[in-house]
């Protein structure tokens, strides 16, 4: 196994029992605004309505992402989380939301296909993107999600974006309570965080 492969294996070798829900604090990082997005049916959807009264887990992805440790991993994690949320009987209190930052190419049809690929249950897990690049910038800024288009040697857009995988835990009042990246995207840990936030109510 090459050194690189060992490293990749290393980053995804979580071997710990997350601390029990309610035994630790998740102080708020910042409040995120509500936005109007376009969902995978082409309809406008308000994130405030979608997440009202719920703990929301938000990922930023684009469906053409070739980075195997980027968007596909985030979506696998949310898929796993969807299962765990159901197992824990939290379905009515949790929303999962994947927001694409490829406004041009992630059409409703592309998002719907992607949602099917990951077995998303629409009642629990929704896919959307912003109605315009300008609107998207506001969403990314609000969450603190980076995204930089990648160009080829002749200055042409390659269709790829440089970005750090981040998944956000947002409480019912719109405050980010935790952020996860690849090295810490463990479903049971996220579930315990969700419960920790819900126990405050």
């Amino acid at each position, binding site marked *: 196994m*090459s*050194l*690189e*492969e*060992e*490293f*990749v*294996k*290393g*980053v*995804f*070798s*979580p*071997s*710990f*029992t*997350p*601390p029990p829900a309610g*035994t*630790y*604090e998740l*102080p*708020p*990082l*910042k409040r995120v605004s509500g936005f109007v997005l376009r969902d995978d049916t082409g309809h406008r959807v308000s994130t405030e309505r979608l997440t009202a009264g719920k703990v929301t887990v938000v990922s930023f992805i684009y469906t053409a992402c070739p*980075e*195997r*440790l*980027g968007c596909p991993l985030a979506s*696998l994690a949310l*898929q*796993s989380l969807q299962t*765990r949320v159901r197992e824990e009987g939290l379905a009515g209190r949790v929303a999962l939301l994947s927001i694409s930052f490829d406004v041009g190419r992630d059409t409703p049809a592309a998002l719907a296909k992607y949602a099917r690929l990951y077995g998303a249950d629409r009642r629990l897990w929704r896919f959307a993107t912003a109605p315009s690049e300008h609107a998207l910038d506001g969403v990314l800024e609000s969450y*603190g999600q*980076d995204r*930089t*288009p*990648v*160009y*080829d*040697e002749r*200055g042409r857009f*390659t269709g*790829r*974006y*440089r*970005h*750090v995988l*981040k998944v*956000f835990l947002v409480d019912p009042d719109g405050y980010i309570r935790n*952020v996860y*990246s*690849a*090295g*810490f*995207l*463990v*479903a*049971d*840990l996220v579930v315990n965080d969700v419960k920790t936030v819900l126990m405050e109510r």
Partner: protein
Amino acid sequence: MSTRSATRVVSAFFAMVLALGAGGLDPARADETCQSPFLPKVTGQEDYIYVWTLGVKGVADGNDSMVTVDANPTSATYGKIVHRAPVPGQHEAHHAGFTDDRRFLWAGGLDTSMIFVFDVASDPARPKLVKTISTFVKDTGGLVGPHTFYPLPGRMLISALSNAQDGGGRTGLAEYSNDGKFIRTIWMPKDAPYGYDVRVNANLNRMLTSSFTGKKNYMRPFGELTKDAEAMKQFGGSVVVWDFHARKPLQILNVPGAPLELRWALLPNHNYAFTATALTGQLVLIHQQADGTWAAKNIAEIGPNLPVDISIAPDDSKIYVNSFGDGTLRVYDVSNPFEGKLVEQIKLGEMANMVSSSWDGKRLYATNSLLAKWDKPSDYWLKAYAWEDGKLVAKFSTDFNAVGRAHIMNFGSKSMGPRAQRGTPPARVSANVASR
């Protein structure tokens, strides 16, 4: 349950990697080995070294500054200072660290507790000061001397050295959002009050902190301090093992003599870290035992030469140790982590402090200067070495005498700029693990 679920994600991930097939795993060829597992890596040769530089009265404008050294051997300005971004005043410049997206570099002052945030993404050659946090002491309820800037997702974890109440060693950790908003303070446990470095192992959900001394010691002239027997007792002698996610201390390890920098091993199942003790000159292994608890073991006698910064090779085979006392870089073979063997030493020059290995293990950079009042009049520099035929060979030496004294080094890349180029693939998380 937790491990099973985690394993499920991992298994699904690897199944997908296999399904995606072609191309294998993307290589990540170069980066410093001693950063956070949450920090994306840049690929290829590092283009720049950002050097947080201590200002010296009478040298340039006398201000602390973020200095950019060109580190790309194909560049016409290889080994030269290509930019300097001063901040107002002198603050005891020491450590600095990137945010989780590598767009911003936070740098701290151990004397004034000021924090300076530089934008390094808009123009990677020319870091720009975009934010100053002057409320660290007030925000944190009395922490003083922000030292390590350690990126966590969406936030910066900062270890402090001292406190505002008595300038002693009782201290803690602070968290700020990437926007610069204070989140919380975590004080060190009463039985191990000192602080210095902080490092996380995400796979184990463990965090380590080490221990130095308070402001009334580190801002005192070195010769005077060493003659004060009472003051010399006021140094930390412990490494604390924490539940990272809960931010709760689990175990206090006795590691006498001011254990400073902490470096987690990088490969899977290497459940250990290293530190070096400044006052007792020991290279120390911090390792997980069969029952899950942690222990410390001295694995090499470095000597009474004030070892300071350390760096780890990407394959966990070597630890580099710089010693302030004799200006020497020592290389220890730690293939067997329980027994460090000295395999190489190089006289760098007076007051060697920081040392950073590139992620591919081929290049090594060092600077000198420890603390303004501990340094002596001397030449100040950044020196680059590379492994060639099993020997460390000098590549360049950058003269810092006209700008100040060089401290911590962080690597930069043109590919992290706003016009990311194909061929320098996007920063990715794949190799994050290489940089604990």
